């Protein structure tokens, strides 16, 4: 029997875990530093299921879902069309919020381990992670634009669906490896771990990874945005000095 989601939410509100199964998890690292030589990183998510009672017999199997979501923001998806012989951005759809990075790892097929209702509630699958309200107003086929957004970001490794990548051992211990590519942006990467049975979420654990530029990278980025004129003058001074130093240096070498 499937338990309706609202019932679970109700029971959880009462402070009683539905089946007495709780998830505890940790990350191999909670800080990722975007240094000058950052080439991507791999986060190991590991944890265990805590129970008051023995594993229930005859129930649907226990499943684990891990999601990692980067900072979200509005963006525009453009579509090119041929105008006067050349390819030009013609139509655009605004997406009110899309994460810059999103990975979802599961212990089985996502469709099996999570019902559509639960997906809608917790926004787990990749299409649920983006919000494109009002997109249909501008073009008739707004869906093609959001599909393109998912496709492009999947190709860049920014959106990842890792079905079966969570390893669940004896229904208790689990591990998942989530890779952060080199082209990620900085911000708080919220990480959620869901425990499901029969497609219904029975427990959830939230944590976060802090991805930030450090050292010279951080300083340059902050200065460029907060003191742009100073940054511009600095860029010019560095260029002028380099030009002078090169000229003087090679003149010295020749003489």
């Amino acid at each position, binding site marked *: 029997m499937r338990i309706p989601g609202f019932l679970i939410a109700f029971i959880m509100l009462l402070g009683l875990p539905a089946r007495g199964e709780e998830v505890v998890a940790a990350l191999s690292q909670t800080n990722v530093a975007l240094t000058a*030589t950052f080439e991507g990183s791999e986060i190991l998510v590991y944890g265990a299921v805590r129970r008051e009672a023995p594993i229930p017999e005859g129930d649907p199997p226990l499943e684990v879902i891990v999601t990692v979501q980067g900072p979200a923001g509005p963006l525009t998806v*453009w579509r090119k069309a041929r105008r006067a012989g050349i*390819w030009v951005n013609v139509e655009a759809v605004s997406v009110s919020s899309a994460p810059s990075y999103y990975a979802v790892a599961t212990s089985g097929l996502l469709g099996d381990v999570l019902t559509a209702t639960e997906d809608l509630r917790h926004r787990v699958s990749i299409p649920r992670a983006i919000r494109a309200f009002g997109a249909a107003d501008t073009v008739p086929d707004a869906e093609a634009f959001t599909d393109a*957004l998912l496709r492009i970001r999947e190709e860049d490794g920014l959106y990842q669906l890792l079905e079966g990548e969570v390893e669940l051992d004896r229904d208790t211990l689990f591990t998942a490896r989530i890779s952060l590519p080199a082209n990620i942006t900085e911000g708080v990467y919220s990480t959620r771990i869901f425990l499901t049975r029969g497609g219904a979420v029975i427990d959830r654990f939230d944590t976060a990874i802090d991805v930030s530029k450090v050292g010279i990278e951080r300083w340059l980025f902050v200065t460029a945005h907060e003191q742009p004129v100073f940054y*511009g003058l600095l860029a*010019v001074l*560095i260029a002028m000095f380099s030009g002078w130093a090169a000229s003087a240096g090679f003149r010295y070498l020749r003489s």
Partner: protein
Amino acid sequence: MQIYLPIAEISINAFLLLGIGGVVGMLSGMFGVGGGFLITPLLFFIGIPPAVAVATGVNQVVASSVSGVLAHLRRKTVDLRMGTVLLVGGIFGSALGIWVFSQMRSLGQIDLFVQLSYVVFLGAIGFLMLQEALRALLRTRRADAPPRRLHQHLWVHKLPLKMKFRTSGLYISVIPPVLVGISVGFLAAIMGVGGGFIMVPAMIYLLGMPTKVVVGTSLFQIIFVAAFTTVMHASNTYSVDILLALFLIIGGVIGAQIGTTLGLRLKAEQLRILLALLVLLVSGKIALDLLLTPAELYSISIDGRW
């Protein structure tokens, strides 16, 4: 060795950047051109966002022009007065270019705008250079060709607001140099180039300046226009990447020194044909990207970023 660029927000191989800087620096040393018109499209090709490529390209131009102008100042082949007049126009043109750039960016058409500018200007310049180089090649083979007149009286000499330019030996109106300055400043802002490839022919054929002061004066003007454009881009589009510029500059200055030495050993006419073909190749590649059906029709632009 990968390097994470803080403004472009992508990771690129450092040796690739040094290599691009080096090759373009070598070509600029060989041909006496700034190289901005090659660096910026090469940055597009390796995946740097066009806005960052343009703004950073113009920053790199500052370095190569400073390095070049010092030699000319020592030889006193810089017409400071003419340079200043050109510069006044250049500042106006650059400000106008920055404004157009921001408008195009908010319309989502900045990539197209930059690419089209490259196709049109590089294509035209490439053809002119090829034609000129081929003609020069023929001229050296035919020794009986008539010599070019040194001083011609053109329509530009009839305009008002005349000024004396002693170093160039000219007494002409300031309107044509200001106009030349404006167009070059505009191109610097939208294409990330110094604009020497437009200015040098304009100075010789339009203003009638003596060839020996042309390159030095153009470099002198380019330094300040490129510097101004860099600061304007930094404060309007936040797209100047100092780290990216640094790698291009380091590669560039080393390449330029090698190129200068190499250029002395090769024949000038053949070099110019090569450069013209290279310019045509780059503009042809950009044109092809606009004409052929792209593999991906969709693109993403993050609101509030370049």
